[in-house]
């Protein structure tokens, strides 16, 4: 009796849901309206735009990031007293989980930071919630501010299906590189080739050290480790073609497999922290700061922490290539791009704002607030000393050589899950390099088949 009543209740709820939900979810009648945006042909005089309030959602909440955006917002409002910036600051995860709802809602913000790649920016473009900025890029000359890959990373075709080509949708402020930090007390001579690097790892291991600090309990650090090695086996073009799902691009190539087998070899030889799949990211780099290892493969977001803990004992380099005169290649990218929503009533002012926070003055502010600017930095502004000097030099060299490879997890909406778990299995020896690349490729083709 109790059970039948419950079932009847459930049925009633079901009927109610259909009564309320009729039609498909996400259907909207204003598609035509939102696509009819006018194209900008010249810079708009913001001062003459009347009183404007720009709502900006950003995730620049930590130390130097927060300092730079505050300063730039102030400067912008000083320059244009008629503009008020209403800043909504959220942590990266909060922003990502609430962004889709906010942008598709009735009171969408004007400017939002939308993470690159298919999971966030791609789906927003597909739903026509972001305004293409190609016209503004021409007006303001944005293409000259960045190296090619950094511009491409913020591009999508209008239907959201092609990544890395088509219209520009946003601009980023900060650059980042995943590279090799080394302890100057333990590394006497910098390796110039991959072979020398591996020889040093073997030597450190013999001396009873942990050659590379690595903690993969959080799942994502494995992607950085694998891709750092991948950059030395596959060409940057092959990696970005794969991430952008260009025609014929594949994960299951000899180069990708070689890289997998190289890093599995490192894991097997004990070059990584013992039990790395059970060690967190933070404990791993903290051990590096205590001088327990010569090397740490990590991103430039650790620069401030490492410099504070180790002073002049720490340096930064890009993983050396097969021969000493190979062009530099490293995993890297840029911060979340600032984009304009189609719902914004003041796209011209929003574009002027994005221009303002990514121009030469902004680059200077970024350097002053201990950030690595993604855009080209004016002469004489970049620091040259210490760890931060190493990072700026590497960033410059990488951009000049077009040697940055993008994060693999941009590739498909589910790729982060697909590859992070697979790398844990690869490094634990649960999958052979061939199984790894074939398995990841099959997940990838499931997606490309649906394009």
């Amino acid at each position: 009796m109790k059970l039948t009543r419950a079932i009847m209740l459930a049925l009633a709820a079901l009927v109610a849901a259909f009564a309320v939900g009729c039609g498909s979810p996400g259907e909207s009648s204003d598609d035509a309206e939102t696509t009819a945006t006018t194209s900008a042909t010249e810079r708009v005089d913001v001062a003459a735009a009347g009183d404007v309030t720009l709502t900006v959602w950003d995730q620049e909440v930590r130390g130097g990031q927060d300092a730079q955006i505050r300063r730039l917002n102030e400067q912008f409002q000083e320059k244009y007293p008629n503009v008020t910036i209403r800043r909504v600051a959220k942590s990266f995860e909060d922003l990502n989980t609430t962004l889709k709802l906010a942008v598709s809602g009735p009171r969408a913000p004007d400017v939002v930071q939308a993470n690159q790649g298919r999971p966030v920016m791609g789906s927003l473009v597909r739903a026509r919630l972001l305004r293409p900025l190609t016209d503004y890029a021409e007006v303001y000359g944005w293409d000259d501010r960045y190296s090619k890959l950094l511009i491409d990373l913020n591009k999508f075709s209008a239907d959201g299906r092609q990544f890395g080509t088509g219209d520009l949708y946003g601009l980023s402020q900060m650059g980042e590189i995943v590279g090799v930090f080394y302890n100057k007390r333990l590394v006497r001579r910098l390796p110039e080739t991959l072979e020398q690097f591996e020889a040093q790892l073997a030597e450190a291991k013999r001396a009873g050290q942990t050659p590379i600090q690595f903690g993969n309990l959080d799942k994502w650090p494995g992607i950085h480790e694998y891709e750092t090695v991948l950059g030395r086996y596959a060409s940057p073009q092959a990696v970005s073609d794969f991430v952008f799902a260009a025609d014929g691009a594949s994960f299951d190539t000899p180069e990708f497999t070689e890289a997998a087998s190289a890093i599995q070899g490192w894991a097997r030889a004990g070059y990584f922290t013992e039990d790395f799949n059970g060690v967190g990211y933070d404990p791993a780099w903290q051990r590096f700061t205590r001088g327990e290892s010569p090397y740490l493969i990590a991103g430039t977001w650790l620069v401030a922490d490492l410099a504070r803990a180790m002073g002049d004992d720490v340096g930064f380099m890009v993983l050396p290539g097969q021969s000493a005169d190979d062009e530099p290649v490293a995993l890297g990218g840029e911060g979340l791009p600032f984009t304009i929503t189609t719902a914004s009533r003041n796209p011209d002012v929003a574009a002027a704002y994005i221009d303002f926070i990514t121009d030469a003055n902004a680059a200077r502010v970024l350097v002053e607030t201990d950030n690595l600017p993604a855009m080209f930095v004016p002469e004489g502004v970049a620091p040259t000393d210490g760890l931060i000097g190493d990072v700026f030099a590497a960033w410059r060299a990488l951009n000049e050589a077009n040697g940055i490879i993008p994060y693999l997890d941009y590739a498909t909406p589910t790729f982060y899950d697909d590859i992070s778990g697979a790398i844990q299995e690869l490094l634990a020896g649960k999958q052979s390099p061939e199984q790894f690349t074939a398995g990841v490729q099959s997940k990838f083709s499931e997606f490309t088949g649906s394009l």
Partner: protein
Amino acid sequence: MSAIEPATPTSPASAVAGGAAGAEAKPDWPLGGTRPEARPPGEPRRVGYLYILPAFLILAGLILYPLGHAVYLSLWHWDGLTTGTWAGLENYADVVSDPALRSSFAHALVLLAFYALLPVAIGLLIAGLVARAQVRGLAFFRTVIFLPQVIAMVVVAVMWRMIYEPENGALNELLRAVGLGSLTQSWLGDFDLALPSVGGIATWVYYGLAMVLLTAGVQKIPQSLYDAARVDGAGPVREFFAVTLPGLRGEIAVALTLTTIFALRNFDLVYITTKGGPGDATSVPAFEVYDRAFQTGQVGSAAAIGISLAVVIFLISVLINRVAERGAR
């Protein structure tokens, strides 16, 4: 079942429990209404629905409508932004056929042992001991053991992540200190150990809850039953099975139901300790719901998993309560 019960001669005790049914059986109201269609005394029955209306509206607005909407969403392929396409029962078929999803449900069932069975077993053991002897400072120990319940699960998970740290976590340090260095493990990083390790945290959290429920239940069992058992020559084990266990049936059902629900909806513990890793060794349905709804844009699939999970929880709790009730007859 309730259709049969009034017909059978009822003992006074169950007539009290029967309440309304007992009153209906004796129609002696003033208008001599022995006719079958005569209504019971007092206000018309239908007015009763008016009384529950406010509560029902809140329930409907906050629970039934969202539930119904989730069912509705589960029938679509929807990324949360663009127009969805009809999926019918495909999302549900995936729950059964997709090996990754199936294994996440299997993990949830393994966790069930650590969330529900183990804590209740430990709780019963302690309750059995308490039943036999007067423990000095019982309230104090009860508070200490119950304490994990009070700490937010997020804090518990962060703390245990440190304890399980392979190199300088407390657990491995302890093993080394007592000369069992060979037993040290990468607790959360090992493919076979990660799930039991996560489960261990849950046992630590929930055995206190089970114990408090069960020791409270023990104190309600009349002392005379124990005296009688002892007079009949029952030892401690016999006493436990003959007196304590049957006396605690209701409490066990409550403890099992609560911990089962906690087990199946487990999200925070996995999210903080392992993110479902290594590989997919600790993925659980609730984590998949979060991942698909908020990270990978598979809202329909997330809803289908959520509904399936709700159905599984519902079935298991019905089962537990049926078994407990049947035992009570």
